[in-house]
């Protein structure tokens, strides 16, 4: 469920591109610093966006060249903002651990073995993160339970199922003390969480139809054997556009000091581009090179 929130790289300014990379590498560094080397592998684009939202209202932090184990022959610029990364890294570890548990439940014995191993590997970081953000860990558990109940009941509601995930993403901003920052941040993250969930549902639809798995789109609309009908897809596209509009309206109200242009790129260009790529099937085929090769918003 990760990787759906990205900037549209061809439209980024070079300094925003550099800032995005420094934020990504900074998250990786912060994860390792707090939760050990193994947690470096949990770094992802979506959580980098979460950091950018939180850091946008903070004073600018220092960017330093730090050691990168993936490219050990040269140092990489990292944003060193421990205060900004604390909550984000705890949320990252908790969400990824829950994702592993979810995968164990969904997969069979042999495939599940790998996930069980991962669960062992990340159990200690998860325990530590749950201590760092106990209310977030509780909320994630409760919402994922609600989501699995909806799935078991084969709920046809896009909103109720997406709400469970969107509420988790928006709760990442629950600890912000200032109301004038917290409310727009929560509203923005809620719509982004919704976007992630619905993109994921659309991406998995063909597979779920084949394997007879649960997918909210399958029960909300009447799909063909391979995917949604054209008018349903158009309707879904309009809902996604409204989601982006609401996210943009919330972003405008965030009192940003930095990263404003980068966040606008992600919300106004990145989210629609990812949805379009998911719709046409290009996202799954070229997920890794997506932000670089995609030229059309």
């Amino acid at each position, binding site marked *: 469920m990760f990787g759906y929130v990205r900037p549209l790289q061809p*439209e980024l*300014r070079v300094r925003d591109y550099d800032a995005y990379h420094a934020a990504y590498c900074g998250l990786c560094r912060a994860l390792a610093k707090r939760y050990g080397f193994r947690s470096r592998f949990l770094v992802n684009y979506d959580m980098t966006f979460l950091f950018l939202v939180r850091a946008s209202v903070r004073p600018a932090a220092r960017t330093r060249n730090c050691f990168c184990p993936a490219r050990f022959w040269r140092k990489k610029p990292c944003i060193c903002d421990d205060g900004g990364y604390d909550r984000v890294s705890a949320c990252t570890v908790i969400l990824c651990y829950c994702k592993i548990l979810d995968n164990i439940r969904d997969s069979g014995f042999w495939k599940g073995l790998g996930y069980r191993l991962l669960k062992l590997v990340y159990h200690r970081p998860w325990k530590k993160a749950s201590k760092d953000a106990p209310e977030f860990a509780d909320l994630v558990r409760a919402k994922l339970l609600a989501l699995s109940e909806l799935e078991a009941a084969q709920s046809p*509601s*896009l*909103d*109720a199922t997406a*709400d469970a995930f*969107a509420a988790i993403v928006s709760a990442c901003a629950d600890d912000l003390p200032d109301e*004038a920052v917290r*409310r*727009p941040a929560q*509203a923005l993250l*809620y*719509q982004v969480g*919704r976007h992630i969930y619905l993109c994921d549902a659309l991406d998995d639809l063909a597979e779920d139809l084949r394997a007879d798995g649960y997918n909210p789109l399958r029960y*909300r609309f009447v799909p063909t054997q391979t995917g949604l009908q054209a008018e349903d897809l158009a*309707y879904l596209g*309009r*809902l996604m*556009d*409204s*989601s982006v*509009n*609401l996210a*943009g*309206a*919330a972003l*405008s*109200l965030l009192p940003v000091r930095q990263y*404003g*242009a980068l966040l*606008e*790129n992600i919300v*106004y*260009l990145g989210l629609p581009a990812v949805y379009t790529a998911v719709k046409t099937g290009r996202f799954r085929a070229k997920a890794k090179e997506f932000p670089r090769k995609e030229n059309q918003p």
Partner: protein
Amino acid sequence: MNDPYEVLGVSRNASDSEIKKAYHDLVKKYHPDNYADNPLADLASEKMKQINEAYDSITKARAAGGTSYGSSSSGGYQYGSQQSASNSYSYGYGYQGSTGGSQYREVRSLLNSNRLDAAESMLNGMPNRDAEWYYLRGEIAFRRGWLDEAAQNYQMACSMQPGNIQYRSALQRVSGTYSPYRQTNYQQSSDLNDACNICNALLCLNCLCGGGGCGR
């Protein structure tokens, strides 16, 4: 109070027209239409107030301080625009065309104070389900960010009362081609625009002259 120039995002020695443009862009960005039925509407209205005050204080200071700015014309414009902005603002948040009884009015006041659960339970307790009922249900869903449910309820309200503009515009907002004013920082850069314009002009010239193999 914050520095008015900072609020409008312009430098202290910006010209009158630059300030006017910045003010216009901000008014469009935080216009109540973009925050209709949005739980963040109060924050947007606060922001709008700050912008109006900042513009007001800059134009007043400039009118009083220097004759080089053409004080009379700028003052006149400022008054007019602020008047219209504040007018449309209160219009945006006031509910018009309410046909329901006292219960609907109560639901609306609960909605205005963002007490969505109370509004929903009150609505669910009503036996009579007319267009207004579906519209209000849609509004509750919209404020929660539940766009699919909002669209379905608005659709229902529209099919029961096709002539109602309020219902139609609500439906348009959630599942239509409605797009609010957007200004990204990428569009603001004049250098970039100039560069794009040059590229466009060159491309057009190239096409007109049959270059690039397009005509083959």
